Every structure is written in C-alpha cells, then in structure tokens.
C-alpha cells in the first residue's frame, strides 16, 4: 500500500493532479491511499514551495505544476 499525499490549497491543477494519481494507480493496479493536504500551514511544513506537490510514502517527489503522467507511473511503480 502506497501512501500518497497531494499538497495544494485547492487550485484546479491540484485537483487534476489528485485525479491523475488515482487514475494511474488504477491502471497499474497499485494499491494506494491518496490524501489531499489543503491546509496552508501543513503544506509549508512539508517543504512544498509551489503547488501542487506530491509525496509518496513520506518522500516529496514533485512540486510545482501538473506532473507528467509517465512520472506519476514511475513514482507509483518504484
């Protein structure tokens, strides 16, 4: 079970990122728990400077802009 967090105050791209993570996980058949972090303090504490940010199992793998689909697959498969 992979623990994925999507950091973002709720902008459009943050929602798109969350959807993408879920879709890619379903495609790959990877078991994930996706949590959205919208609290600005929590986002800042996680060290995310530009949103959306993504962490997998506690490791920050992405920040700023919509991630590439193939990269999402890479994080989930690793």
């Amino acid at each position: 079970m992979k623990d994925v967090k999507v950091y973002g105050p709720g902008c459009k791209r943050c929602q798109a990122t969350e959807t993408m993570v879920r879709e890619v996980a379903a495609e790959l058949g990877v078991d994930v728990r996706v949590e959205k972090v919208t609290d600005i303090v929590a986002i800042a504490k996680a060290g995310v400077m530009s949103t959306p940010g993504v962490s997998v199992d506690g490791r920050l793998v992405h920040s700023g802009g919509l991630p590439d689909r193939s990269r999402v697959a890479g994080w989930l498969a690793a």
Partner: protein
Amino acid sequence: MSVTTQDLPSARRSALVWTSGIAVAAVLWWVVYHRLSAAADWIVAQLPVDPASHTGAALAFFFYDVPKVMMLLALIVFAMGVVRSYFSPEKTRALLSGRREGVANTMAAGLGVLTPFCSCSAVSLFIGFVSAGIPLGVTFSFLIAAPMVNEVALILLVGLVGWPIALIYLGFGLAIAIGAGWVIGRMHLEGWLQDWVREIHSGGNASGADDSTSLTLPERYRKGLDSLREIFGKVWLWIVLGIAMGAAIHGYVPQSLMERIMGADAWWSVPAAVVLGVPMYTNAAGVIPIVEALLGKGAALGTVLAFMMSVIALSLPEMIILRQVLTLRLIVVFIGVVASGILAVGFLFNALF
C-alpha cells in the same frame, strides 16, 4: 553500421520530432502574422460600415489588434514556459540564500520574472523563502516583481503601445520591486510575521522534488504548451474585452475630457490612479488595451503607468491571501512602500514627458 532514425534512442528521436514540429509552427506563425493587417482591412471592407467613420476605425482597430496581440502572446508565453522549466522556486531559494541584501534584492526581482510562479502558491513560496533564512525584504522583492513584470504585460505593451514604453515599464517595475524590498528589509519587520510562520524551519527536503534540471527537452516543450493553454484560457476573454473597450475609447471618447482628467497638469491624477487601481483586480491582459487607448487620447504617461502598476502589483485578493502569513500592519507597510514607489514613477514621468 548505417545510422537510421530507428537506431537513434527514442528520447533523441522524440526531441527531434518536437523541435522540427516547433520550427514548422514558427514559420507558419511568421507567415500568418505578416498578413494580419491585410486581413483586418478585408474584414472591415466586407462589413456594411464606412471605413472612414468612427465605427469603421474602431472595428479596424479591433480586428487587427485582437489577432496581433493573441499571436504575440502565444509566441512569448510558449517560449517563457520553456525557459521557466529551467528555473524553480527551490533553485531560486538556493541562489538567494546567504547573499548580501541589495545584491539579493536585485537578484530576487530578476528571478521573480523567470521563476514559475502562481499566485495560488504565493503563501507556501513566501514561507519557503522566509523559513530558509532569506530576509523579508528580499522575499518581497521577489513577490512584487513576479506578478508585476511578466511576459503578458510586456507583450501587450510592445504590441499595443510600442517597445519604448514596454522597456520603461520593465525597468521601473524591477526598480520598484528592488527598492520596495530594500526599504522593507531596512525596517527589520521580521517580528511582524504571523507567529506560526516564525516557528517553521523548513529543511531542504524539497530538493528531491525539483525536476528543473532533469527534464528532457520534449518535457520542457510540453511545459511550454501547458502554460500556453493555461494562460490563454485565462486571458483571452480579457484581451478581447480590453481591446473592444480600447476600440470604443479610440472611436468615441473626446480627447479634451481625457486630457482634463488624466493629463499631466492634473497632479492629483497620479494618486487617484493608484487608489483606483487597488480594488481593481484584473491581470495585465485586461488593463493594457485600456492603457493604450488612454495614452492615445492624451492621458499622461506617468498617470497611466501608475494606474497600470497599481492594478497589477497591488491587488486586494492577493493581500487577503498574504494575510495568512503577514500581520495587518506588515501588509499596510507593504502597500505603503509599494504605492510610494508607484507614485514616484508616476510623478517622475509626468514631469519628464
């Protein structure tokens, strides 16, 4: 061994495909761009209006300016999207930390233009900078320059008002960002941040998330296209509305009225323009076509620049977002310092021209 396209690694092949595709698009762009004026004349000639009338002039202005500005914008937004993929807030923070104030303010303003930045992450970026020990004033230089000096504003100025004024705007926009940030830094207001902000000490664990060095060329092109789609989706309506309004002012508003209200002799017009600009929330795209028309009708350059800078740099919604990290008195100081800078630019230009 013969080298065919099949032998090339697929990454290199796709970079080649992308680059040639973009070269073809650039040539097409150039061909179309140089035929816009003729096309606008042709469209107006098909309409049942006299080309020499007020309406005819306004329509010709509209049909020429809308596609012209859209095309310039598409080109620059794409190019800047690709350039920005080489920058990131993490890199900018690393470049700024440990520098002397003054130098750091100047760099921050410059990097504010180049670093990908969305106002929705202004707060997390602010905290990321301040908690890493970057002085408040330097952080402000960045935050002022990022929205104020952007490619959308500059392209619209080049396309509608001409490049000398675009350069003036660029120069003084940066000067205000550097100056205001420096002044705020001198005041040592770090204690005026919200308490919880000072308690965060962000580590460098974000570095793994920074992909600005590892992206492939096609991925960078795709970033350019992404920003093109996103910015265009956001501003196209503003551009059409702004230019339509500009066309109306071109055609109908009497010159003498504008000269009386916004001319260089009316000294109070500069502060009035700044005050008027704060609650107005539009991006550069919406305000610049109006600026062009105002200038064309005799409004003073300083007044118009002050209005434009105030609309873009001092916006109420952004203050409300920043309120989460700044105390009210710090916001007041911020507005005061930036507004003074804008006033100075306005008065200076009205005195010079």
